[in-house]
């Protein structure tokens, strides 16, 4: 397993920034912003689901926490957008710590953990949908105010640049994981919790840190989403669609790898747009394709596109060693 160098990551980020200013059409610009937001959400999912092996079906809980923090703080309390962003990210970490504390105390993993995260996200969705403070079923409309202090730009390329910056932070966090004690502990407890404990790993503390970082990154994606579309409601912010897209992008791209979530988000959403175009707008076709890709990638490339590319490119006879 070769790990990407920081220089490689820098080149990729620079390339993305160049593309952003290469004169994309409005639609493509919007698509790329959306890709970066999903990539960021997927990077968050990947910390917990990929490196620590705790698959969550409810990352909407974090995404929604960020999105609602952004919307509520700005519209109700007149908080500055940048400060709201920071608070939103912190809230994501806090929600993560809350869910993690309850679930990991009880030792939940595997399908139980997946289901309980889904249930938490659903509870959040129902609450946001019926509480006046969060705008109830009508949702929240953010005010259009362009300018750097408002984190909104007349020229959308600058907003894209901000999302790319956040994805870059996500890449660096993942890169750091692969070169740190914390990251080694995450993988160790994913592979064998007992053995990790025997080596002095405080499994509970490590999981708590992982879910907090994971929640923070995905909440950042939620913040950017709210700021980009200027409207959220419970079904958008806490809906299962985002839990699923974050998970899909990470797994299809390669869970537990630095570049997997970014590659997965670009490939999936690119394909999604393609299918939408080809099928002439039949509803659900893009998700149908996502589902098929997920099943195929679990079946034939359990390590994701990143590893598939590596094994095809680097080692001619792919060493398909199943654990």
């Amino acid at each position: 397993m070769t790990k990407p160098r920081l220089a490689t990551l820098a080149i990729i980020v620079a390339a993305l920034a160049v593309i952003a200013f290469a004169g994309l059409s409005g639609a493509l610009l919007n698509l790329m912003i959306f890709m970066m937001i999903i990539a960021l959400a997927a990077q968050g999912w990947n910390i917990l689901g990929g490196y620590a092996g705790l698959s969550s079906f409810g990352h909407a809980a974090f995404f929604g926490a960020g999105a609602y923090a952004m919307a509520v703080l700005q519209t109700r309390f007149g908080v500055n957008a940048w400060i709201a962003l920071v608070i939103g990210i912190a809230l994501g970490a806090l929600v993560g710590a809350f869910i993690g504390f309850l679930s990991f105390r009880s030792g939940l993993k595997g399908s139980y953990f997946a289901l309980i995260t889904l249930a938490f996200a659903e509870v959040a969705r129902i609450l946001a949908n019926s509480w006046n403070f969060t705008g109830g079923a009508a949702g929240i409309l953010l005010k259009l105010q362009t300018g750097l202090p408002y984190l909104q730009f007349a020229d959308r390329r600058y907003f894209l640049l901000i999302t790319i910056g956040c994805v870059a932070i996500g890449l660096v966090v993942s890169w750091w994981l692969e070169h740190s004690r914390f990251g080694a502990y995450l993988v160790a407890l994913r592979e064998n919790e007992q053995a990790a404990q025997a080596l002095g790993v405080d499994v509970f503390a490590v999981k708590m840190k992982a879910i907090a970082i994971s929640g923070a990154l995905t909440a950042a994606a939620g913040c950017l989403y709210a700021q980009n579309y200027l409207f959220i409601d419970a079904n958008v912010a806490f809906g299962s669609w985002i839990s699923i897209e974050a998970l899909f992008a990470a797994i299809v791209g390669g869970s537990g790898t630095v570049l997997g979530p970014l590659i997965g988000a670009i490939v999936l959403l690119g394909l999604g747009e393609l299918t939408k175009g080809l099928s002439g707008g039949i509803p659900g076709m893009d998700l149908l394709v996502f589902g098929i890709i997920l099943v195929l990638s679990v079946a034939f490339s359990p390590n994701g596109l990143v590893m598939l590319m590596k094994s095809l490119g680097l080692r001619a006879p792919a060493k398909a060693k199943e654990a």
Partner: protein
Amino acid sequence: MYSPQIVVEALLNGLMLGAIYALIALGLTLIYGVLHIVNFAHGALLTVAMFMVWLVCARYGLDPYLAILVVAPLMFALGYGLQRFIIGPASHGKDNGILLVTLGLSIIIENALLAAFQSDTRTITTDYSFRVVELGPLLLSFPRVVGFGVTIATTILLWLVLHQTDIGKAIRAVAKEKLGASLVGISVPHVYAMTFAIGCACLAVAAGLLMPSFYVSPKTGAAFVLVAFTIVVLGGMGSIPGALIGGLLIGVVEAASSLFLGDSLGQIGIFLIFIVTLLVRPTGLFGARA
């Protein structure tokens, strides 16, 4: 405050809706008990069964209850094929793989239905859809009374199949000791697929019971899936009596919480039960295994 009569009526109707929940959960818990997998596609497969019932009724004018006789074998075959040729091979026998493959399947099914039928809701109106049964001073919905009866009958039938037939014995053997069963010549992939098929056939029965009083859209099953998981977890993963009692209990809780909290908040009661059960007693009320 509501009059006692309204409360009792609501709870009884909840109990009977709970019976249909139990039927949905029955298939799920059976699959869990034998294959030890969480079948995330269960809700989507329920939607498929409901659309089948709807098609049969709308096209050929069959009564939804009779449609069960047509749809159950179809769902049985679909379930067998899915497990044997897709879920089994694609997941490489890993827990996480199964979870993701069944999640993928549920998304495929839901969106294939969306592409084919759009997101409209469809209903079947029968002359008994709104009929009520009088029980003393209480008025009970006729389709729910039928649902309750058929669920009990189906549970007994399932129990008989598991205990009196060869395939039932093979299923129980595989559930207890996979390796031992395969050593005495039982084909484990076949038994897995048969179990999955029976679980899907239960969904066909539930679909037939739901259609006279409920609607179907491509997302209908998704609404049931967490309810079904709640029942299975509450009753104890893999326990058939657990699923039955859990289902009835959840039906009552849902009726009570939507009576007192309103429809949109009412659902929260179920999720909270789900979360609390998982946190406090993940083995459920009747489960033995951790």
